[in-house]
């Protein structure tokens, strides 16, 4: 584990080589996993997963409980480093650089790949300090208040909290807290935002607000989202990956294809609720 305490500059190469004349709907690959195997102790959680994730698209990961979706997500920004028993084999490339290379610093990597968890976990600080957290730890020297406002607006939370920026983030409702966590994740302007079931702890109205938000974010960020809600995956994602038990990626294609005409019978059974 190489948790460095300094504030290193990003060591992964993040230039995508995209030219200005490229159309907005590029198909550039930003993250690519190659024969990824993950073990917790002796137990295998991911089995030979290879997939390419395109820039500025929403990619949904679906599959039954325990099939390794969260594990895959945590591999991308190396949150698995913190789990002692976890062992990763294979490559995960971010902008062409293997994130498990020795000279990649996991702290620097996570500054480029933000994450939003299933349960909202705002810090016990003011709303402003929550959003400014990433800026503070990365030594951002621009106008913090402006950035906080921008991020809260992007997260569709500004109108609800603009008069109470100094009150605690814990005083918000669950849905507001989750949007606060999203604002917190996008404030330092990452390339990719990972979301692990971000709406599963929320009521339908709050969930649909977050879905709209994800839609908007896709123009600017690459979003990878784990969800158990088929309609949600169908509504918001461009591409969908189906994991099945054993940690195998069974099918990965355009969302429309997966939901209308999947190749595998098992995927169709899963999507239509026949099992899982």
């Amino acid at each position: 584990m190489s948790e460095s305490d300094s504030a290193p500059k990003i060591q992964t190469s993040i230039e995508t080589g995209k030219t200005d004349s490229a159309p907005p709907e590029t198909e550039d690959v930003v993250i690519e996993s190659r024969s990824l195997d993950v073990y917790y102790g002796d137990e295998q959680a991911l089995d030979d997963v290879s997939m390419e994730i395109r820039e500025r698209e929403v990619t949904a990961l679906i599959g039954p409980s325990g099939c390794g979706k969260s594990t895959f997500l945590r591999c991308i920004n190396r949150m698995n480093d913190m789990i002692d028993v976890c062992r990763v084999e294979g490559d995960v490339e971010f902008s062409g650089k293997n994130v498990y290379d020795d000279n990649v610093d996991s702290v620097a990597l996570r500054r480029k790949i933000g994450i939003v968890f299933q349960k909202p976990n705002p810090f016990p600080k003011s709303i402003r300090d929550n959003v400014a957290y990433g800026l503070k730890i990365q030594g951002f020297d621009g106008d913090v208040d402006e950035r906080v406002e921008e991020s809260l607006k992007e997260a569709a939370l500004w109108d609800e909290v603009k008069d109470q920026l100094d009150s605690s983030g814990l005083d918000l409702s669950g849905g507001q807290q989750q949007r606060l966590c999203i604002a917190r994740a996008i404030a330092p302007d990452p390339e990719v935002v990972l979301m692990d079931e971000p709406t599963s702890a929320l009521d339908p109205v709050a969930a649909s607000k977050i879905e709209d938000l994800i839609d908007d974010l896709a123009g600017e960020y690459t979003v990878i989202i784990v969800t158990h809600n088929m309609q949600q995956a169908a509504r918001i994602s461009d591409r969908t990956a189906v994991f099945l038990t054993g940690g195998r990626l069974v099918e990965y294609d355009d969302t429309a294809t997966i939901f209308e005409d999947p190749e595998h019978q098992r995927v169709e059974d899963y999507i239509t609720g026949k099992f899982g």
Partner: protein
Amino acid sequence: MATEETPSDQLGRTTALRLQQLKGQLFEVALIAATLVGIVSLLVLFAQISNDAFRPGTASPAWFLIYLSTLVAPTAAFTLYARRRPAVRKTNAKAFAAVFGGLLLSLVTYAVVDSLSPYDVFIYAAFASLPPVLVLAYDRTTDDRTYTGPAVPVSMIVGTGVAAALYDLIRGPIGIAAEWIMYFGLVTVPAALLVAWLTASRRGRRAGSIVGGVVAAGGLVVAVAAIAAGVNASLPVVLFSAFVVPTSYVVVRSVRTNPEGRIGVAGPFILLGGVLLGASLAYEVKSPDTFLTPNLLLNSWDGLTASNAGVYPQIVGSVIIVGFMAVLAFPVGIGAAVYLEEYAPDTGWGGRLATLLEINISNLAGVPSVVYGLLGLALFRRTLGLGTGVVVSAAGTLGLLILPIVIVSTQEALRSVPDALRQGSYGMGASRWQTLREVVLPQAIPGTLTGTILALARAIGETAPLVIIAIATTTYSPPSGLFSSGTALPLQIFAASANAKPEFRHGVVPAAAVVLLVLMLLMNATAIVIRNKYGREN
């Protein structure tokens, strides 16, 4: 057997159910009895001690009447009035903290600094605080802040080292200055800076510098007035800076900014006024024959005349020993806990070693204090060759004694910080140290303080280990330095309880015990106030 039971028949009270209920009731009665036995015996003990200490029976009824009307009735009336009004109650609490906290802080600071020599304390304080100030000033002039954090503590340690090395050189010239100037530097300057900073953060830089200047000028005026009146200026300067300044700050701020609650600032003054008024009225009246008198607090020991015996050196000794112990043990204990909880590996050989360490530490918390005395004797007297009964040995021995308590409770506090917060911080690209500093430690402070409260309370009453490392029972002046011999209050109580004269055993001892209890309660109260303040902010 043949009769079919309907469900409604089964709702009745069977013998088995009744028996079960009876068992439950018996258990409840036993629990109540145990609680009562414990509480009642403690209450009887305290009643006995306070009766011996205060001797209310020896006062005339007039004495009670006077204090009832000047002190008890007005205070009670005001409390009742404030109880219904949250704004008043809040300012009342603030004013109480400022007035009595300030008073206590002034007296303790003066007593401790006076006994350790104001010149020495000033030299060390100046050398320890100037380098970090310079570091922070430099920090403002440059963009590269990477090393500022670690530079501050390092510069303090270096400064202290330099002070020790240059001590002989500086002590002479500094000694020419008047004593009150040392107190001015030690107390007035920080008070002025603090008030200036607080004001500046609310009302701008100009207001801040003006208020700070007023405080500093006030300190000078007080000193000059005291010298003109022919009294030692030191205590007035300290009282002005640590009592008058915070009190006026709170009073002025509450009156200016809090119209509904402003009446609350009267609370502590009603109490103080009641005491003073009562004392002036009760002058002629027979007061209780108590040993809890100014003599007890301000004199040094007199083993022959009970009314003349005082425990001033013991009180100051206890405060210095426990204070220095805190300086030694808290950083070590908290550091060890943070390492074990946040850094030590969970698996493999390192993990096993860490688990072994943790088990041993919890066991050490239960080791009898006599054993720590032996350890202290071997370590400080034999191995390090320190003098007999010196303050460092006492502080070090008590520090070892409370170390496990501090470690275990800090670990407990760190463990109670939800892992989701750590994950959230790491996920934002924070390093381990940033996560610790920004998220984990602030959450763990209230819990850590609870542990340190327990530790302080335990340490201040410890007697056995001090006896073993041969701390003197009676010294006639407070310790003059960390390497000079000192004594502690519980030791004197222990020794006096064997005095042949009954007025010692039944008068001075309980009075001194009350002083010890009050000392402990004051320390606890301070820690509780800090803890609640942090708890509310989070």
